[in-house]
């Protein structure tokens, strides 16, 4: 009951000042709407770039790390040392017992998919043109299952490697640069000096230049041949997990099973992640600034409301309302404006997201990467309300401190 009279007063103030309430609400709406939209945009970009990362990167990779030779080597005499230039030791990149390790990894509850492959550098040659790139020798069907590669094939299929031992699948960018088409032959040479002439049986487009212009897929046995290695040679294990965000923790768990380097995707894609981070911080701070500016609007409107209502405040205090009651009344008014404004803002944001998500970008991007994300709606709502309550508090506090006698004397 005591509460209800404060509510009644706040409510009456709001409905007798519809225009001011509406203007305040619009201010909040623009702030919240833009905040929601920009954060959805940022989140959409992040999701897009992450999806892009996982087109060709596993959540976790296991491989042999380059070893650097030590600069000081104790001499056999034990009284002197050999000083040496530190350099990469030309040790083999071979993983020992890869099948057993692969099996252990596959048995982990958090692993959805894992496969083994050989990765190596190659030169692509056609006529007098030569390009550097990398080759992956792999069971292409398993690889396609893991990375959904069929989605990115623009000619041929991932299955065709199985049927053509001497086949190769290349990216669209490489095909363009070397004017290659399906069925053409491509000369590939490895650092080990092995040269293979392979027939193009598939062309992909993943929307990522380093893949589209530099990566080719060959059969595992061809890969091993080009590295002059034996039949169980494997350089890398790819592991996909249930939750890429936890890849770092999973990687730590896998370390206990192997001495090889276990690297989660956040490390291999650090550059990309830092770009994401920069964008998130930038968009976040810009949108937050807009929200704060909107809060100043609310502050202004509430301050002027309180100045106009100073007589009423004095009367309320004279008839026995205390400072806390006055704060409650004006905070409630701020809250009502805030809820109306925030609700309008969410609608505005949703409208903008709806419009932009229908813009077709073409190419590998497709539609503009922006989505309706409930957590962002919730976050915008909560933030909107909090900021309005903060903006409302100071004018309300001033109102609570009004000295009725000084008003009555005027």
């Amino acid at each position: 009951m005591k509460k209800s009279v404060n509510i009644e007063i706040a409510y009456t103030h709001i409905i007798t000042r519809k225009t001011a309430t509406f203007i305040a609400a619009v201010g909040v709406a623009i702030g919240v709407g833009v905040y929601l939209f920009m954060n959805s945009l940022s989140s959409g970009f992040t999701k897009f770039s992450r999806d892009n990362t996982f087109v060709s990167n596993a959540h976790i990779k296991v491989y042999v790390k380059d070893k650097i030779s030590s600069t000081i080597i104790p001499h056999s005499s034990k009284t002197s040392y050999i000083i040496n230039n530190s350099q990469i030791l030309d040790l083999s990149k071979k993983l020992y017992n890869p099948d057993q390790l692969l099996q252990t990894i596959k048995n982990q509850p958090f692993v959805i998919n894992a496969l083994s492959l050989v990765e190596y550098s190659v030169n692509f040659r056609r006529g007098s043109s030569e390009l550097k790139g990398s080759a992956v020798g792999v069971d292409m069907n398993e690889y396609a299952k893991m990375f959904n590669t069929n989605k990115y094939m623009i000619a041929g299929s991932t299955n065709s490697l199985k049927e053509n031992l001497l086949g190769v699948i290349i990216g669209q960018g490489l095909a363009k640069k070397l004017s290659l088409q399906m069925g053409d032959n491509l000369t590939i040479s490895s650092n080990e000096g092995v040269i293979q002439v392979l027939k193009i049986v598939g062309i992909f487009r993943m929307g990522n230049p380093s893949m589209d212009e530099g990566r080719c897929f060959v059969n595992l046995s061809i890969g091993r041949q080009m590295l002059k290695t034996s039949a169980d040679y494997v350089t890398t294990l790819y592991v996909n997990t249930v939750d890429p965000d936890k890849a770092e923790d999973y990687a730590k768990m896998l370390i206990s099973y192997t001495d090889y380097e276990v690297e989660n995707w956040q490390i291999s894609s650090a550059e990309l992640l830092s770009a994401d981070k920069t964008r998130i911080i930038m968009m976040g701070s810009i949108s937050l600034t807009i929200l704060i500016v909107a809060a100043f609007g609310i502050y202004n409107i509430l301050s002027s409301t309180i100045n106009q209502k100073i007589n009423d405040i004095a009367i309320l205090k004279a008839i026995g309302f205390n400072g806390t009651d006055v704060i409650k009344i004006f905070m409630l008014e701020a809250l009502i404006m805030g809820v109306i404004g925030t609700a309008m803002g969410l609608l505005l944001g949703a409208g903008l997201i709806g419009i932009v998500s229908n813009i077709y970008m073409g190419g590998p991007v497709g539609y503009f990467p922006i989505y309706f994300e409930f957590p962002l709606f919730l976050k915008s709502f909560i933030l909107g309300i909090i900021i309005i309550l903060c903006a409302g508090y100071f004018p309300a506090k001033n109102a609570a401190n009004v000295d009725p006698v000084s008003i009555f004397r005027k």
Partner: protein
Amino acid sequence: MTKDPILKAKNIVKYFYDPATFKALNEVSFVAYKGEFLTLMGKSGCGKSTLLYCISTMDTKYEGELVLNDKLVTGLSPNKMAQIRNEYIGFVFQFHYLLPEFTCLKNVMIPALKLNKLSHQEIEERAYQKLEILGLKDQAHKQANKLSGGQQQRVSIARALINDPAIILCDEPTGNLDSKNTQIVFDIFKQLASENGQTIIAVTHDNDFAKASDRTIEMADGKIIG
């Protein structure tokens, strides 16, 4: 009639510092009794309103002591004083009257809603009664700022009565009223004092009004002179 003191003012001194230090109340002491209809007279600027604000507990920046119903009020917390005002003191202002966006009925009801001792319906019935006494029942649902000055003043008297306060303080309550309504207000005050035992302290410039009251306190230059 037994004389129970309800309000005691002891050596109240009030200074104003702006524009220059000025002693508006100079050691004012008096006692008001239960069921007494007191009037306060004096030239304009002699400190009547200032005294009223001090004893209403709204102004706390004075020296001296204020005792209400045998309890020292001076120095209580603002919240406690607000509660005392709500329950024990009715105030009729000299100039500012009502909350403009609310109906007359709501204006009268608000102190009782704040006190929160009766149901909403009981409060509404009481508010109608008070408005009826002041001849304003037909205006109950009009918005307060759509009333004439005299009507507004009468609504504010009705509001001061709603919680049956022990003390009703009025600053020129009939200043805007015609002789007929002045008589009505006078009769109401008389009745409240004699029948309900409520104490009225009213500032007035109206000699007849003062003469007809139980007792008149005369002020000049911040002092009580009789």
